[in-house]
């Protein structure tokens, strides 16, 4: 049985497992960032990092299966990420106008 994981790239091939591993590593880095950072702006940046890792995985599978739907899905993810960044940053600017926040744990008014 041939190894379907080898994606032909130009004159050589690229192992899909390597690229998927890179995507997993970047996603985990983003997860760590969301969990341990306190600045709300940096947390948004880490979410963007996670979305990019997911995009890499989608495009890797699209190239491995020769199925374009992965790339279309990646484009949709980019749109959603842009919308998320716009709304998230607007909320952030709105919060910062009222008070200075250097720790997201300070924003606990909804806790009651």
């Amino acid at each position: 049985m041939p190894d379907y994981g080898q994606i032909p790239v130009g004159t050589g091939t690229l192992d899909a497992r390597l690229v998927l591993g890179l995507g997993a590593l970047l996603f985990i880095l983003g997860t760590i960032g969301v969990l341990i950072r306190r600045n709300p702006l940096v947390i948004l940046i880490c979410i963007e990092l996670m979305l990019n890792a997911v995009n890499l995985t989608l495009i890797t599978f699209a190239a491995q299966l020769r199925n374009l739907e992965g790339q279309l899905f990646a484009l949709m993810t980019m749109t959603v990420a842009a919308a998320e960044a716009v709304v998230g940053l607007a909320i952030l600017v709105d919060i910062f106008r009222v008070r200075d926040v250097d720790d997201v744990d300070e924003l606990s008014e909804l806790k009651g």
Partner: protein
Amino acid sequence: MIVPQLVFWVMAVIAVLGGVGVIASRQPIRSVLSLVAVMLALSVIFLELSAQFVFAVQVIVYAGAVMVLFLFVVALLGPLRERATGRLRFQWWLGILVALVFGGFLYSMLNGLRFRAPANVDLSFFGTVQQIAAGLFTTYLYPFELTSLLLLVAAVGAIYLSRGGRTASEIQREEEDRRA
């Protein structure tokens, strides 16, 4: 030839170093610039995986527009210093633990991964603008049109949220007036 793998490894190292820079730098501006490095490195890998259109969109929309938006917000909010020690120090260890468990799951899944046979398609025409457009405007027309609605809602929402409201000093003055 070894060239594609060499390009991949260089870009992977840049991406991982950038990812570490995103979560490790003290100042948000460095996080943003590290993320730009990650995105540019990933865009090269997209190009290797014959996703030409997504490569262009990644550079223009992501590394260009979205990250400039982040830079503007960093410039608007000024240099934010993050406290070195938070109140909830156990979150740090919890974060590492979650990352280890999650990484272990992903690693074991990658190890046991079996790839399905690819479709018999010529990769040299794969991911071109024509093919992307054919997909977006036939099979995925409704999701594509809904995307425009999503962007409209996001734009209106952002304008609504960031319209001129009361500032902190104004709120304080009002409270003082009420007390007086």
